[in-house]
């Protein structure tokens, strides 16, 4: 590319690669299945997915982000993505099932490409020797010149930040406005306009508090729709942590884009969101949070700015059905999502490249939003949320009007962000507590499920996935766990995603410098209506935890696609509850929700009570004995058995 071209062109600094699934693989394992996993490699950076055991068409949905320094054709080695599909052999070396070799430079320049596409597998030499099947990849290019910590600052001052904001908005919209998938894919030109508006909107946000509240509300709504939000959030999260703000946006757009009108609506939402939250820095953490808790997605999206959202909100129905969701539902949902995502991703990607931020026309977003919100609200906080949503919408409109003038207010926003951070921390703590309870519940639920064999198989799968999730959550960032309700925190602290990825992501807070937050403040509330959030979406997001080095998956359970996990969590929560309810009759209902520690305490307490009663019994026995002795001595005939006749 010529210098001029380069100057105009958008250069990705990183690529977020999601290995979704593979098909038509050669079968090297027993019983005609593979224990397949995928290695994602660019230059020396390697990530491995989990092992999809006994699979014919393995589904991973795991993602990794690669830095792309010196991203140009002359640096082919550094810009070639290898997706290596391996079969884990019980004995000996793992077997190569095939690999996909992708020139990222060409791919990035091919704006007509689908973000999510099938790539043919070839042999180890890069030649097509025989039919090896193909792998479905989602490749997003992201622009992050700075490390995560620096990212926010850079974004604030630069127009790109707006873009990122837009992206965030879009994402959020997509996530929240599930039904509006069509709109999500906004042409780059449009996006630009939107970006401007967003920046203004943020500035305009007269009272950060109000915005926050609106954001919060929006967040709550999505959170309430745990299932929906979670899945989407999960997917985005994976991308967010490192540098992928653009990517996330693209995803979100793809998901939601269905109709222009919807798009417009999303745009509005996005603006609001942008105003409230700092997108870049926070995004990673939020995304993580969302995954973990499932509720946070929208807000987190805003905060992070770019990546935050996982578009896929889990469909309500899935949550209700609970069990089915985990596996089958995901697949179907994924497909749907994929379609949406592809479209959306393309659009978003283009917009990023062009640096133009997809401008959302300030069309009457309100109508769509309320609709979307309603389903969520119903699930979580039916009444309150609606009111909040309406308010949010109104606020957003106002913000858009004032955006241009109120850039100055960014500073205020920063302050707000700080407050938000505080709130977030609190929320995180709450979430942690909730997670603990959830875990307990889950465990109990598992037991109950075991008892109920009908549901056992499904439940067991879910539970396993959940456990894995739960563990992950705990380990990565206890603080990150936020309650869906409190999603307000724009700057997502969620260490989850970032931890695995790269040092950049490590400090979400740093990245979310106040300035950045101001610009990005957009409260990406667009609560994706649960209805929109189709099962398919959840599948898309499949959160992939980037695994820095391990070629082989650490553990099968962990390896399972995060998205699925997140979904599973949502499902689990619902399922667990259901199970618990069902199980109650079987098991002692009151104890189903107690933790192990609580149960122990209870047992100890009862033991002491028993010992006291025993002592009393002894006393009574002694007393009776004494009475009997006297009776025996005085008048033994009293003791003559009632039925006996002397």
């Amino acid at each position, binding site marked *: 590319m010529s210098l001029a071209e380069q100057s105009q062109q958008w250069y990705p600094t990183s690529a977020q690669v999601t290995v979704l699934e593979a098909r038509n693989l050669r079968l090297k394992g027993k019983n005609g299945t593979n224990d397949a996993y995928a290695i994602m490699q660019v230059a020396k950076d390697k990530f491995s997915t989990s092992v999809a055991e006994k699979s014919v068409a393995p589904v991973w949905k795991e993602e990794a982000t690669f830095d792309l320094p010196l991203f140009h054709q002359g640096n082919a080695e550094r810009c070639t993505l290898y997706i290596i599909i391996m079969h884990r052999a019980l004995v000996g070396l793992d077997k190569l099932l095939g690999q996909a070799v992708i020139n990222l430079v060409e791919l990035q320049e091919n704006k007509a490409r689908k973000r999510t596409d099938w790539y043919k597998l070839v042999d180890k030499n890069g030649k097509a020797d025989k039919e090896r099947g193909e792998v479905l990849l989602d490749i997003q290019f992201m622009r992050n010149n700075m490390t995560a910590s620096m990212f926010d600052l850079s974004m604030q001052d630069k127009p790109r930040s707006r873009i990122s904001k837009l992206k965030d908005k879009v994402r959020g919209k997509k996530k929240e406005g599930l039904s509006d998938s069509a709109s999500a894919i906004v042409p780059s030109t449009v996006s630009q306009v939107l970006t401007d508006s967003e920046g203004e909107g943020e500035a305009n946000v007269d009272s950060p508090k109000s915005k926050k509240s609106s954001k919060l509300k929006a967040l709550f709504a999505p959170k309430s729709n745990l299932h929906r939000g979670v899945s989407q959030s999960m997917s985005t999260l994976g991308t967010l942590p490192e540098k992928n703000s653009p990517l996330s946006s693209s995803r979100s757009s793809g998901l939601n884009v269905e109709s222009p009108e919807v798009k417009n609506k999303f745009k509005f939402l996005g603006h609001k969101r942008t105003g409230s939250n700092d997108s870049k820095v926070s995004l990673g953490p939020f995304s993580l949070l969302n995954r973990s808790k499932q509720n946070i997605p929208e807000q987190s999206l805003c905060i992070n700015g770019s990546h935050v959202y996982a578009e896929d909100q889990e469909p309500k129905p899935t949550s209700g059905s609970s069990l089915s969701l985990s596996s089958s539902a995901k697949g179907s949902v994924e497909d749907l999502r994929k379609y949406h995502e592809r479209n959306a991703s393309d659009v978003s990607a283009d917009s990023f490249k062009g640096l133009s931020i997809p401008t959302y026309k300030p069309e009457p977003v309100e109508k769509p939003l309320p609709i979307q919100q309603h389903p969520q609200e119903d699930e979580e906080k039916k009444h309150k949320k609606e009111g909040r949503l309406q308010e949010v919408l109104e606020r957003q409109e106002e913000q858009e009007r004032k955006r241009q003038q109120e850039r100055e207010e960014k500073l205020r926003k920063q302050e707000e962000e700080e407050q938000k951070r505080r709130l977030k921390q609190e929320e995180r703590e709450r979430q942690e507590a909730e997670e603990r309870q959830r875990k307990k519940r889950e465990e109990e639920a598992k037991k109950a499920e075991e008892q109920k064999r009908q549901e056992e198989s499904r439940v067991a799968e879910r539970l396993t996935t959940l456990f894995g999730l739960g563990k992950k959550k705990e380990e990565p960032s206890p603080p990150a766990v936020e309650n869906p309700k409190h999603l307000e925190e724009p700057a997502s602290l969620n260490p989850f995603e970032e931890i695995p990825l790269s040092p950049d992501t490590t400090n979400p807070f740093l990245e979310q410098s106040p300035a950045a937050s101001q610009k990005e403040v957009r409260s990406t509330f667009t609560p994706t209506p649960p209805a929109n959030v189709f099962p398919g979406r959840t599948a898309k997001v499949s959160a992939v935890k980037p695994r820095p080095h391990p070629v082989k998956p650490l553990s099968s359970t962990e390896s399972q696609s995060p998205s699925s996990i997140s979904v599973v969590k949502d499902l689990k929560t619902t399922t667990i509850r259901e199970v618990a309810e069902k199980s109650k009759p079987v098991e002692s209902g009151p104890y189903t929700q107690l933790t192990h520690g609580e149960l122990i305490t209870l047992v100890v307490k009862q033991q002491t009570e028993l010992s006291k009663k025993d002592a009393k019994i002894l006393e009574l026995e002694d007393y009776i004995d004494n009475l*009997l002795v006297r009776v025996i001595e005085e008048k033994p005939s009293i*003791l003559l*058995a009632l*039925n*006996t006749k*002397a």
Partner: protein
Amino acid sequence: MGSDEAYNFVFKVVLIGESGVGKSNLLSRFTKNEFNHDSRTTIGVEFSTRTVQLNSLTIKAQIWDTAGLERYRAITSAYYRGAVGALLVYDISKHLTYESAERWLKELYDHADPHIVVMLVGNKSDLASIRSVPTEDAKDFAEKNGLLFMETSALESTNVEIAFNSVLEEIHKKVSSKEVTRGSINAVSLSSPQPAQSDAQEEKKACCKNL
């Protein structure tokens, strides 16, 4: 003399043994010819009586039953006091109940008259299919300790009458042979009607002598 109204002797016999060996059912089988499949653990102390004819004598058996005592209780000494006979019951299907016989025997001799007549009773002989206490072992143990021995089944009413009658007869032998000092072994007088004998216990003793 009417069996119910008149008698020459009143012998107090106690049932001892581990909980669950069937003491109460032995008692109800002997005194009421009843068997309760769902009988609960005995609480407290009670006795039943049955008047039997031994030879020409009418003997009123006053059989005391209580829970298998696992600890010393104030009632223990009162329970054994005045007993001239004892049935030490174990469950032939539960060896532990047999192993504890020695302990019961010790307690018995600690609190009762040293000349008390004791029969080792292996109950639940209907459960021979799951027998864990060989008859010979128990018989040997009984011989070594100077005990009578019998295997019974309160359920099937096997040997219950024989067991009690054997004990009563043996008691009578001892009484009549004067092996037993009167002071130590008493025929307990009941407040219940004693038409045949208006005598007090002391008189009864006399009766014993006379008889």
